[in-house]
Every structure is written in structure tokens, then in C-alpha cells.
């Protein structure tokens, strides 16, 4: 059992001069893989460090397994942490790095050896046990850092941007390794990243944070399909969601009128939007939800013609950058034709995929 509960937790620095986390309440379930995600300075690492006990808590209560841990030192919290810079002990071999915490616990030598060998086998580190960290590659170092955490068999695994120093290929590889490790160890994982792809692919649930406030805490699918506000909608998904200012009008059916196109509101969404008639709203369309007329599509009741400013071929798809109403947008369409700058492109939108936001509050309607 290892649940983590934040109850109105606050964190400020310099005697309250700078508040990083004003009021955080959050409940992480046992054996759950939770990813904290958000832009730099949003408080995600501070939140993780508070769980670790590396940062004092300025207010509220933090529970691990229903026990308040506010004043419990890190070593007594039964947690293990993997750092962005690996934080391996450079003067120790891989074996000694992994055995260090167990030695401090005065565990018998034989037991230490068994545990280290078990972790080394899982992480494929057996050939490197006698090496020092400087003789290892980035990926191997990261695996040692994971191994060091694993041997302790902790209640909670904390990972602070562990993959951000790796190259793209290795990152993908390590991503799946960590996910498999979580399944194998059946422990609570709290993972911090600013990379939303990592968050989406690894997490059971994601906490999206901005300015120390939780914007949404839900499954990756829910975050993608039903973002709570414009911040989450913009943060989750790559390239990010396009936002268009529009006005909702009721003339021959409910329509959202924007510069360059007009969107017929589907019946499924009309009920939610009735309060916004003759008001300004924001439409959110994900780049991948634009459709090229070349694709067989019948439902499309909205079309817009744009002038391509830049076209990026990514293989089977092309990202088309265009400008509308003074703002830059991106559409990702399936196209194998070469698109040049200035080409007029017709784009279709399925109204069912469009998101609607309150212009004043930025909240999803």
C-alpha cells in the first residue's frame, strides 16, 4: 500500500515572499503511475521534492499511506528517487552505487548482493557492475539510477525528468523500460516531465500543472478528448491545439462564426452552448482533426481555405502552417503531394471534434 495524499499543501520560499504552490490537493492511488506535467516553473518538481522530503512544506498536510510525513526525514519515508542528472556517486562502481543505500541500512552482505544482482539482471547491467559511472553511456547511467532505486524496494518511486538528458531514440527505449518496470514492480510511481508525449504514453493518470495550480488530473485519454480548459487543451497534444475566436449565432441552426469559416454546431453539443448564443467563444481544433478534401469524408460541414506559409513533410502526414485572423495555426493532413508556400489549401473540419471554450474564463464549455 502506498497512497500519496496532498491536503491543501502550500509551498513558498524566502519566508513566504515567493509562493510556488498556493494550495494543492491531490490523491495518488496505490500502484498508480502518475505523471506531473507542465511548463517550466509550474511547481511540478517542487511537488515531487516535497514528497521526497527534500523541500519543507509551508502549509497543509502530506500523507504517505495515511501517515502525515511533513516532518519525517527523507530516509524514513521509504521512497526512492531518480534524478534528471542521474546523481550517481562518481567515486563508486555501479555495484557500489546500487548497494550504497542497503549498506547504510546495515543489510547483510549476501542479501545486498542478491538484491543488486536481481536489479542488474532486470536492467541488463550485469556486465557493467565493476565500472565507474564515467565509463557508462547516458542510457546505462540512467539504468543504474533506476537500479539504485529498485534495490531498496521502496513504497514510492519518484522520478524527476529522468529522460531529459537522453537522445530521442534512447528516450523512447527507456520510456518503455520504465513503463514495464512499473508493471513488474507494482509500486506507486510519481514521474515529473515537461514532455507531454512522455506523460501521455506512460501515465495511468496525469496531473497538468500551471503556476502551482492543478489544471486537470485525469487519464491521458480524458485530457486529450475532454480538456478542462484552454491551458490543458494547448498543453496536451503536439503540435498544440489551434484556437479560433468565434461568435455563436442562432440563424438557421446554431453556428459559430469565425474569420474565414463558419461552423455548424452539432446537435450533441448544442445543449451545452445554449447559454453562449450571441456571445464570443473560442473554438479549439487539434491539428490532426483537420481533414484534407482528398480524404474520403462525408460529415464535414465546415471548410476553410487557407494559404500555406510553410509545409513540413513528416512522412505520411504534412504539417501546414497558415495564418488566420492574425494568428498562426497548424493543420496536420494526410497528403503525399508537395505543397509549396502560398498554395491555397482547402481544409475540412468535423464539428464533432471541435472543442468549445468560454472566452472569459478559458474553461471548456
Amino acid at each position, binding site marked *: 500500500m502506498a497512497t500519496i495524499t496532498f491536503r491543501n499543501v502550500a509551498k513558498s520560499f524566502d519566508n513566504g515572499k515567493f509562493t510556488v504552490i498556493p494550495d494543492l490537493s491531490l490523491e495518488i492511488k496505490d500502484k498508480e503511475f502518475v505523471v506531473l506535467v507542465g511548463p517550466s516553473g509550474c511547481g511540478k518538481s517542487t511537488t515531487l521534492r516535497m514528497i521526497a522530503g527534500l523541500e519543507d512544506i509551508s502549509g497543509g498536510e502530506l500523507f504517505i499511506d495515511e501517515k502525515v510525513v511533513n516532518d519525517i526525514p*527523507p530516509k524514513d519515508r521509504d521512497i526512492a528517487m531518480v534524478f534528471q542528472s542521474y*546523481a550517481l556517486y562518481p567515486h563508486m562502481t555501479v555495484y557500489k552505487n546500487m548497494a550504497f*543505500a542497503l549498506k547504510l541500512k546495515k543489510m547483510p552482505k549476501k542479501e545486498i548482493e542478491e538484491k543488486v544482482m536481481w536489479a542488474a539482471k532486470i536492467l541488463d547491467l550485469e556486465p557493467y557492475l565493476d565500472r565507474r559511472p564515467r565509463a557508462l553511456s547516458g542510457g546505462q547511467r540512467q539504468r543504474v539510477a533506476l537500479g539504485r532505486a529498485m534495490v531498496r524496494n521502496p513504497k514510492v518511486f519518484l522520478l524527476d525528468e529522468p529522460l531529459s538528458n537522453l537522445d530521442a531514440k534512447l528516450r523512447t527505449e527507456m520510456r518503455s523500460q520504465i513503463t514495464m518496470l512499473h508493471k513488474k514492480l507494482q509500486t506507486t510511481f510519481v514521474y515529473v516531465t515537461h514532455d507531454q508525449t512522455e506523460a501521455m504514453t506512460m501515465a495511468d493518470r496525469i496531473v497538468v500543472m500551471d503556476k502551482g495550480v492543478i489544471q486537470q488530473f485525469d487519464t491521458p485519454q480524458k485530457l486529450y478528448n475532454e480538456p478542462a480548459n484552454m491551458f490543458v487543451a494547448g498543453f496536451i497534444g503536439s503540435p498544440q491545439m489551434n484556437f479560433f475566436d468565434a461568435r455563436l449565432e442562432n440563424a438557421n441552426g446554431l453556428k459559430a462564426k469565425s474569420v474565414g469559416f463558419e461552423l455548424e454546431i452539432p446537435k450533441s453539443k448544442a445543449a451545452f452552448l445554449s447559454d453562449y448564443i450571441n456571445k464570443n467563444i473560442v473554438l479549439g481544433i487539434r491539428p490532426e482533426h483537420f481533414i484534407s478534401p482528398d480524404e474520403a469524408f462525408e460529415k464535414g460541414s465546415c471548410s476553410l481555405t487557407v494559404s500555406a506559409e510553410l509545409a513540413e513533410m513528416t512522412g505520411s502526414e504534412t504539417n501546414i502552417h497558415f495564418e488566420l485572423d492574425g494568428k498562426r495555426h497548424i493543420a496536420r493532413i494526410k497528403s503525399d503531394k508537395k505543397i509549396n508556400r502560398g498554395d491555397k489549401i482547402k481544409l475540412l473540419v468535423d464539428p464533432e471534434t471541435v472543442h468549445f471554450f468560454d472566452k472569459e474564463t478559458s474553461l471548456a464549455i
Partner: protein
Amino acid sequence: MKTKRRIRNTAVYILLFVLSVAFLAPIAIILMNSLKGNFYISQAPFTPPDSETFVGAENFIKGFSQSDFMRSFANSAFITVFSVAGIVLLTSMTAWYIVRVKNKFTRLMYYFFVFSMIVPFQMVMYTMTYYAFELQLNNPVGIVFIYLGFGAGLSVFMFSGFIKSIPNEIEEAAIIDGCSPIKTFFLVVFPILKPTAITVAILNAMWVWNDYLLPYLVLGSGENKTLPVAVQMALTGGYGNKDMGALMAMLVLAILPIIIFYLFCQKYIIKGVVAGAVKG
């Protein structure tokens, strides 16, 4: 372009060669003359010993008997070992505290240490000697504390520079692994500081071992005298009364331990001096 570079390189080599000769010549002259008879030392000080001038270990035996060598050697060794150990251990801990605990007090402490480096010894030697006598520090144990004070400036400065380059996360990992602050320092931080610690040890050992003025002022020329003082006291008297051969032999023996110590540790000096200069 190539010829220009070759000329420049040759000029640099010549300059370095001349400098090497200038630095090594005194040592070579001492070594050569320690094996020659007194008459030949003053006649031809720059020629190596030959079958006529070579006197074997005679100068060394004379020096031993005249200079109370073993006692002053032991004094020097005691003072050097304990001063250097104290400097390395205490200044590394101080530097760690200064770097990791950032507040006005630690900043002020750091400036004090840096400032102490630029104050010349001659400026403080009279007051220092007065207080050394007042506080009963005029003995081999007491002078260790004085050396600790004089050595702290440069050592704290060097350790601080290196500790800044150690990621904080390593210490945090140690805390999570179960280390107390003391264990974090001795099991994690200090081993990482090894190259700098050795550099600090060599620099201080050379200075303390070879120092003449401070031990002369504080310990005097009695039974607590150190090796440089002992050599000077025993073997040089009034004009024309110098036993140059024995003096040279004692000088060879006096510089030998520090040269051996340096040769053993010299690879760390470069590592220690450049450590922290670039982000690894």
C-alpha cells in the same frame, strides 16, 4: 604559416628549457656539492663530483651529528602532517558549508577567507608572534593551529570552487539513501573532493615543510626547532666558518621527503587545479 608556427614553437621550447634549467639548477648544485669535499665546493661549485672530489657519505654523517637532524626532522614531520591533515579536513568542511548554506553569514565568511590570502605574512607576524606566546602556542602542537589559520584562505577558496561544480542532486540522493549530513560529507562529498584535497595537501605540505620564518619566530631555535631552522642554525656560523658540504647534505635530506610526496601526488595537482573549471 607553418614556418611561422614552427619558429614560435621553437621559441617557446627554448624559453621553457631555460626556465626548467633555472628552476632545477639549484637542486642539482646542492645534490652535486653534497657529495664533494668542502674545499672543492668553494673552488668549483658547478662541476659534478669526480674521483678526486667525491667524498661519499661523509657530508651526510657530519650533518647528522652536527645539526640535531633527527629531532628537527621529527618536529617538521609532526607539524607538517598534522597541519596539512587539519587544513584539508577542516577547510573542506568549511567550504562545503559555505557553498551549500547560502546566507549573509557564509558570504561574509567566504570573503574573510579570500581576504586572508592577500594579507602578507610580514604584516601580521609581530602581533601573531605576540599572541602565539600569550596563548601558549609556541610549541609544535600550538603551531599547527597557526598553520591552520594561515592555510585556510587558499584552501577554502580552492575547495569552494570545486564544490560548486558538484551537483546538489548527488548529495540529495545520499540523503534519500539514508545519509546524515556527516555521512553525506565523509562518504560522498569528501571522496569526490579527492583530487582537490590532494592538491591542497601538496601545496600546504610544501609550504609548511619548507617554511622558515614562522617556526623561527614561534618555536625559536631550541629543541622544538624545525628542519630549515636546524640546518641554518647548526651549520652556519660566523663568516668563513660554514661547513658547506654538511649544509648541502642536510639540504638534500630536507628537500627529499617533499619531493617524494610531490612525485607521488603530482598527477592529482593538475586534476585539482582544473577541477570545476568546465562543466562535466
